[in-house]
């Protein structure tokens, strides 16, 4: 392939790659081999050992260095005469604004998180530059093409928000191992080793009876001169023993559920045994400290017994206090922190044991706690090849031949790589079609701060919002704001919506903009008095913004991390946890799903013969073998299997 015109289009092209990781390495290599000569690449990460199984441009000796820079150096070795400009930076930085994007002929994403993808999507829309999106997870992958006004933008099809779990499930009624992980990571670990000033739901009783939070504070503070062993057992007994007993005292909760059993350290680990633990690590660096090593537990794939988990729990806690004292009070969970992973695994397992949930190995627990995306080189290579093919079409403005391509694990009608025509833009998309949204909220109780955090930033993905009602600016973020405005905005954040200088009440229309993304949308406000605490803990309901339906994993983007953290719990469970399902948005999805039309139906020009110059000997031109019905069937049947996790 690569005809002369293609080659010259390729040579002239200026390409932006966002991401130099799994897809990025493969993509940069393939672009360079294909004749591209001016490539820019943005990536904020540094190289880690676990990258080396697939990010083949990196070596062991590069660990800790910038991915973008090392990738560039590696590719220049086999293509010395091309230009690759690396940026070790976050694509959300203000220097990557619309004019920066306008310089490029096409943008190619190799990202691993939804947030950055939405951001780039908006910038490409604002700049009018085509975007080729992609993602991989294990053996699955996809490549999609987005052209403003011609195809769907990346956000036209709803992308589910990261999983979060209701508070009560985490604090009182876990039914799955992941609930125990979230408890261990975001509550217990955070309480013991994290910022003490952070709000923490540990010990919150689901029925809100008087809970002695003063008492809890005492429990978690290490008493003066207290033996670390003593302290460890005290914590153990409190969270796995006492708190469970307290929960059991509320009969209501357990009417239709299996009761947990309290676990006390003296029953699991009689006193003398703990003294035998612990091989004092003499002179080892604080970073290498490990309970597993200390207890001689070798295999991270082993599932430890309750006794072993309890030993790890106490030993890890002991090692934190003995060897990593300076870290205590500052730590957030990091999947690459071995001791933290050990602690969280053990804590989650003990809790699971209490609730009759199957225990998991450290390897599995780490994957869940660290939101690890499983990944192999081959899928990334395939996807990179597909991206370059689309990129070349984009450069040639080959409008009728753009394809969304899905890389399947199991063939569907003989196809492992399935091309589908792109759809026209979704007219209800609030991003590219500027459809207004609606928000139901108690305008007298809800503070502007909550509106900004939960709606504007979390749901709408804006980083630097400007909020206006009419001509009145209620809030904005920026670098060169006047001092007195900053004060006013700070004050506004703490006010209820109806008490703002320009009061926001039922019927108000707010305009929200992100100047960097050059993206704006309007929100119609409706006052509502009551919100169900369980089902709508945010106290707000945004609609018109089409969320993915809860019962199916339709359109789940491949390769987006899935947070299991529960910082601001809300009801968006998407894993089929039946107790907590909500149905409110599924109607909205169904309403628009039927109206999507493929590009080919829209244009009146017939597709050119894809087999090349028209042949003499044929009766019919070679057509794309895909008809409407097949596509609908294929996509809805197979998307379910896309997201089934592989069992090891």
């Amino acid at each position, binding site marked *: *392939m690569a005809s002369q015109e293609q080659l010259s289009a390729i040579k002239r092209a200026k390409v932006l790659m966002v991401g130099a990781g799994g897809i990025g390495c493969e993509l940069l290599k393939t672009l360079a081999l294909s004749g591209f000569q001016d490539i820019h690449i943005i990536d904020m990460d540094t190289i880690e050992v676990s990258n080396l199984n697939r990010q083949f441009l990196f070596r062991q000796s590069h660990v800790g260095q910038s991915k973008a820079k090392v990738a560039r150096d590696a590719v220049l070795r086999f293509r010395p005469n091309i230009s690759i400009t690396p940026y070790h930076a976050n694509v959300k930085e203000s220097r990557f604004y619309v004019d920066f994007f306008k310089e490029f002929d096409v943008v190619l994403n190799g990202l691993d998180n939804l947030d950055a993808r939405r951001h780039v999507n908006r910038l490409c829309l604002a700049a009018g530059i085509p975007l080729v999106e992609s993602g991989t997870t294990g053996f699955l992958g996809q490549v999609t093409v987005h052209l403003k006004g011609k195809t769907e933008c990346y956000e036209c099809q709803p992308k589910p928000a990261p999983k979060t779990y209701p508070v009560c499930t985490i604090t009182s009624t876990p039914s799955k191992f992941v609930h125990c992980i979230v408890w261990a990571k975001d509550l217990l670990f955070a309480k013991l080793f994290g910022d003490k000033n952070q709000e923490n739901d540990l010990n919150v009783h689901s029925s809100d009876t008087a809970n002695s939070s003063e008492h809890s504070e005492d429990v978690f503070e290490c008493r003066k001169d207290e033996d670390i062993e003593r302290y460890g057992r005290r914590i153990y007994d409190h969270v796995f023993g006492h708190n469970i007993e307290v929960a059991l005292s509320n009969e209501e909760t357990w009417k239709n559920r299996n009761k947990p059993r309290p676990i006390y350290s003296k029953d699991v680990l009689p006193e003398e045994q703990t003294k035998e633990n612990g091989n004092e690590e003499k002179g080892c660096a604080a970073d290498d400290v490990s309970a597993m090593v200390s207890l001689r537990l070798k295999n991270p794939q082993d599932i430890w017994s309750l006794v072993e988990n309890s030993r790890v729990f106490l030993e890890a806690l002991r090692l934190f206090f003995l060897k990593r004292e300076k870290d205590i009070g500052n730590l957030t969970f990091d999947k690459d922190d071995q001791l933290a992973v050990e602690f969280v695994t053990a804590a989650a397992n003990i809790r699971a044991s209490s609730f009759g949930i199957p225990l998991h190995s450290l390897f599995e627990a780490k994957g869940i706690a660290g939101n690890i995306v499983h990944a*192999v080189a081959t899928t990334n290579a395939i996807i990179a090849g597909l991206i370059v093919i689309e990129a070349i079409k984009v450069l040639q403005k080959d409008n009728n031949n753009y394809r969304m391509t899905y890389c399947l694990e199991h063939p569907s009608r003989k196809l492992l790589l399935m091309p589908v025509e792109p759809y026209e833009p979704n007219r209800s998309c609030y991003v590219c079609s500027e459809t207004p949204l609606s928000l139901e909220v108690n305008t007298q109780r809800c503070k502007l701060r909550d509106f900004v955090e939960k709606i504007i930033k979390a749901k709408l993905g804006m980083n630097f919002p400007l909020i206006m009602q009419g001509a009145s600016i209620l809030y904005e973020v920026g670098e060169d704001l006047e001092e007195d405005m900053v004060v006013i905005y700070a004050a506004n954040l703490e006010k209820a919506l109806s008490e703002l200088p320009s009061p926001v009440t039922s019927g108000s229309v707010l305009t929200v903009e992100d100047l960097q993304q050059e993206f704006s949308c309007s929100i119609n406000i409706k006052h509502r008095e009551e919100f169900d605490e369980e089902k709508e803990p945010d106290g707000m309901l945004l609609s018109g913004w089409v969320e993915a339906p809860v019962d199916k994993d339709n359109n789940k983007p491949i390769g987006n991390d899935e947070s299991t953290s529960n910082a601001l719990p809300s009801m968006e469970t998407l894993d089929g946890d039946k107790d907590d399902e909500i149905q409110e948005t599924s109607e909205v999805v169904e309403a628009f799903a039927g109206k999507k039309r493929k590009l080919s139906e829209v244009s009146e020009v017939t597709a050119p013969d*894809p087999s*090349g110059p028209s042949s003499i000997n044929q009766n019919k031109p070679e057509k794309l*073998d895909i008809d409407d019905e097949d596509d609908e069937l294929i996509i809805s049947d197979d998307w379910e299997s896309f997201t089934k996790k592989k069992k090891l």
Partner: protein
Amino acid sequence: MDGEELTEQETALYDRQIRVWGADAQRRLSKSHILVCGLKGTVAEFCKNIVLAGVGSVTLVDDRVVTDESLPANFLILPHENHYNGKTLAEVCCDSLKEFNPMVHVAVETGDISTFGVEFFEKFDAVIISCCSLGKKVLFQKLINQKCRKLSKRVAFYTVECRGSCGEMFVDLQDYKYSKKKLEETIECQIEYPSFEEAISVPWRALPRRVSKLYFAMRVIEQFEDVEGRNPGETSIADRLGVLKLRKELCETNSLDESQIPDALLERLLTDTREFPPVCAIIGGILGQEVIKAISGKGDPLKNFFFFDAMDGKGLIEDISGPSTRS
């Protein structure tokens, strides 16, 4: 369980892929030996993939001397003037591949392996052929496939060829048994593969109606090159009439309508013979996955041809078997 545990180093390095296929599969990979013949772009991609995956060893065969022409789709060759003075492709690629994963043993073998004895192939678990300069592609592939089949040990056999925007891959796992989990149960599966010779001898009229046109087109081009004594890829538009004539003959013999092998497709295969890097990446990736599946015994292997055409973007599997091995 298969014996020794993975080392700490392996567990750390292979963490992300162990999460895909499991520790057992990883162990099996680390004990496997792969033979690769013909180091064009697609095979370079494949080698990169399996070295990263952590196979036990990779043995490279390609005695062609490195020239400027070898460079385009092969990123294992670093263009330094003194770097490849007289070195063979196998030697240069060997050096590059070792860097990707120091735990994999990469070596070079020289000579015409189609003349080697059967015992040579016994060392390997998988053999991958991408015919290059030997003039008789079909015969070469047949011979090696036969040797693989003569052994009591199962040696997986693959061929691969990419031309322009098209790519073709063939798989022969002989009599392949594996187990997989379906819902809560483990079920035993068995697939019988035809040999390379059996597959390409299946009369065209016996094949299902909607078999990919690319299959037939590749057979025509292949035969043309063999008959004319050309190396794979040594064709041009000047061969058009010759190819169309051959197509006519083959279609008559096989009772196949000539429209099943469009002129336009044949023309593309005649003129775009150079490997196109994105297609190399795709085929090299699919091939990598298949070899990993076969060695680890995990996952449904494809049977028995895979085709990709960047023109329509489809990557599809065709089962080209006689009645005895048809699934």
